[in-house]
């Protein structure tokens, strides 16, 4: 089996991902000091977080070379997660008159 050679290749990738994650962390923190407007700040911060999360998921959790069933499960997770966030957020618009969530 070409196992040992493969694993050395994988280890090189892990070092690369580690470096990328640290760089992206520095970028996130640096950008926060630039004081964008709230919407822009949210978009930038969450985009970078999404990139970092994808790197961790794809390479450390081996998702990039995973079986189809795991992708199917994660597809369900994405659907239910987004639905939950949307439904909770939408509840804000159906409050009875005069009521607020935060005093």
């Amino acid at each position, binding site marked *: 089996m070409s196992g040992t050679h493969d694993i050395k290749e994988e280890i090189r990738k892990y070092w690369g991902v580690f470096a990328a994650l640290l760089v992206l962390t520095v970028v996130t923190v640096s950008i926060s000091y630039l004081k964008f407007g709230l919407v822009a700040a949210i978009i930038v911060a969450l985009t970078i977080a999404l990139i970092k999360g994808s790197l961790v998921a794809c390479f450390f959790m081996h998702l990039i070379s995973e079986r189809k*069933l795991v992708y199917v499960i994660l597809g369900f997770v994405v659907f239910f997660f987004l639905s939950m966030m949307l439904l909770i957020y939408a509840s804000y618009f159906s409050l009875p008159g005069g009521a607020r*969530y935060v005093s």
Partner: protein
Amino acid sequence: MELMPYIVEERKDTGLFNAKLGIWLFLSSEVMLFGALFSSYVLLRTGGGAHWPHGSSILNVPIGAFNTAVLIASSVTMVFSWAALKENNLKKFKLNLALTILCAFTFLFVKAYEYGQKFGEEHIHPAVFLNAYSFLWTSYVNSLLHSGWGTKIISGASTLALGFLIFKKFKTALKFICGGLFLSFVLMTIFEFGSRTSHHYYPPSHNTFMAIYFTLTGLHALHVIGGIIVNGYLLGPGNKLWQTDPQRFTNRIEIAGIYWHFVDLVWIFLFPVLYLL
């Protein structure tokens, strides 16, 4: 005699060994758990409107960034420990798993320091945390504390340079000493920031932001503790399985690793949401 089928070889229908399917299903439920809290955060923030404080005005961003780096490092060492088992290197596996647990404890330690700041504790001198190097630290820390930024940066850079010089020639022990020196410099600079942003008495009841901050990070910290317990078992008594069934043990490490990466993933989202936005 097989206790359970498909713990090493893959099932024909799923294409996975059972534990891998199990951990992904478990993580799916964890996504819903943290997702519910994130949704609550979104709702509370949009409901709160103008009164919502910026995370950076209450929380210590350098400390949070340091904790992010620590958790990322722990994720890397976790995957290296699995890779070491694939290479049949038990010593390397133990070293990397030990480093993972060390990073996890560092994260919790720093988190506890942060929590303490919010409950009105006096600023604790960083030298207290660095027992192993304390005799060095008193003078090193004092001189850095009373120096300007220029001196701090030069000291940090020269420590790094010294470290790199030694990495090429000497043994791992010296590598750790230099790594520790540099780490302590970073820690000390961060704690200096901490002394400027420390508040007295900001418990969960202080405002909604503190409530959601403590809930989210507290739940995350519990997950870190759970991970420490599992990894600690695998480093200690759980090790025995390597002698009898190495493939099965490697699979266990892979599964523990997937859980640990998820914990890191949650923090990667928590940090910008709470500290930076």
